[in-house]
């Protein structure tokens, strides 16, 4: 691509040299984005597995409480959740005096908290749906083998549900990755933060944001390919012959 040349003497549309000069910003940005997204997904999944099963089984008292949590976090934009946790909580003296302030003081922990709770809410619904739609025949077969109730869940329902949840969960991973870009508004220098710095410093909107977009696309592609591999492996029994 000749127009991506680093020669800037003429009226070339891209200042790739300035992107290159600040490449360490983007490298750190990728690391922060991957780290935040990855940890949030892991924590979110740990929340979602028990919550999703509880919801599918309609456990008394617990199920309505979980439903409220899911509604609250799916019903509001992630941006507002992050603002409320970061700027909102910080305004209360009681919060600032509490032991939690050591963590809430840090933008990184605030982002991780918001992202984890958000991802947890979405994943809860995914798992609830997958558990609830477990084919009756699988459960009957497991019981006919003489498995106890917890064994039915641990050995049949959960593995089966997680397999079927894979495509939807792959979506959630990509969604969380892109959602994490709002971390840059609370001073975290993630991928978008690097792009915004380039924009603010040199008034180079195109260069900074296009580089950020390409990096997000690359990570998304990696996630998509990884999930395609997982699906091919775990959903082999559903593939058309």
């Amino acid at each position, binding site marked *: 691509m000749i127009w991506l040349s680093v020669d800037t003497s003429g009226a070339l549309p891209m200042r790739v040299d300035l992107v290159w000069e600040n490449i360490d910003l983007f490298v750190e940005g990728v690391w922060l984005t991957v780290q935040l997204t990855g940890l949030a997904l892991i924590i979110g999944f740990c929340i979602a597995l028990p919550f999703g099963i509880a919801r599918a089984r309609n456990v008394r008292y617990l199920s309505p409480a979980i439903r409220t949590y899911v509604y609250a976090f799916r019903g509001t934009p992630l941006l507002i959740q992050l603002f409320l946790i970061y*700027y909102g909580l*910080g*305004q209360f003296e009681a919060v*600032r005096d509490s032991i939690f*302030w050591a963590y809430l*003081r*840090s*933008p990184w922990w605030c982002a991780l908290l918001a992202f984890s709770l958000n991802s947890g809410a979405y994943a809860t619904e995914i798992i609830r749906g997958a558990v609830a739609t477990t084919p009756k025949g699988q459960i009957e077969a497991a019981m006919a083998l003489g498995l106890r109730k917890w064994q039915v869940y641990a050995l049949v329902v959960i593995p089966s549900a997680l397999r079927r949840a894979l495509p939807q969960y792959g979506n959630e991973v990509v969604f969380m990755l892109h959602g994490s870009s709002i971390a840059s*508004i609370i*001073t975290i*220098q993630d991928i978008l*933060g690097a792009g*915004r*710095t380039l*924009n*603010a*410093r040199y008034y180079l909107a195109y260069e900074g944001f296009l580089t950020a977009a390409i990096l997000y696309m690359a990570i998304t592609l990696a996630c998509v390919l990884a999930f395609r591999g997982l699906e091919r492996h775990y959903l082999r029994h559903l593939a058309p012959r």
Partner: protein
Amino acid sequence: MKKLMLAAVASLTATAAVAQDLEICVEGAYPPFSETTAAGEVVGFDIDIANALCNEMGMSCEMVKTDWDGIIPALLEDKCDAIIASMSITEERRQVIDFSEKYYQTPAVFVAADGAYADSAAETLSGAVVGVQRGTIHQDFMEGEYPDVELRLYGTQDEAYLDLTAGRVDVLMADSEAMASGFLATEAGEGYSMFGEAFAIPEYHGDGAGIGVRQEDTELRDDFSAAITAIRASGEYDAIAANYFDYNIYGSD
């Protein structure tokens, strides 16, 4: 154009009837540097400095109130001979007009909780969490001169104020006027103050505000520069500045 006679400085009142030596374009909508009173008079730091400079040069001056958008054209069309209107010296403007040496430069300052830091030395601030607005000269300054601080980048200055009061950052670095009027003068700014040095380093902070003259008037330009040096040496500059600012408005020498 609405012209406005201001009372001539005291030493000139006796012979005020003579023709004016210089007409000076001022602006009138940039407090506290220049603002228009209810009576239509233009007052402020710029005007006081203009009068002091005219006095120093032994000239009588008339202030011509001019809209900001038309202030460079007014100079070029001989409607006035100089611009004293907090105009920052920039390369773009230098292509059309010429500038005296700076007569002030709102410096960049540190703000923190009262008494938190004794001075602004790099060792004192080592390890502190410092907030700046993303992509500003202040970010460049901090990265260049204070490599040992933890820098937080904000989209707006207001978000930085919020995090200072919440205790997430220890120190802010920004323009002195922005901090003085935008934060320290407000309720939220109680208990916080500027500390340490006031920075105005051309490499980071530009060249400050100068007096604009036509490019051919090199003699007038040099006279203004000399007069600025003179009133700073005589203490008159500081006396005027003290009426408006409680910090060093001239910036670094």
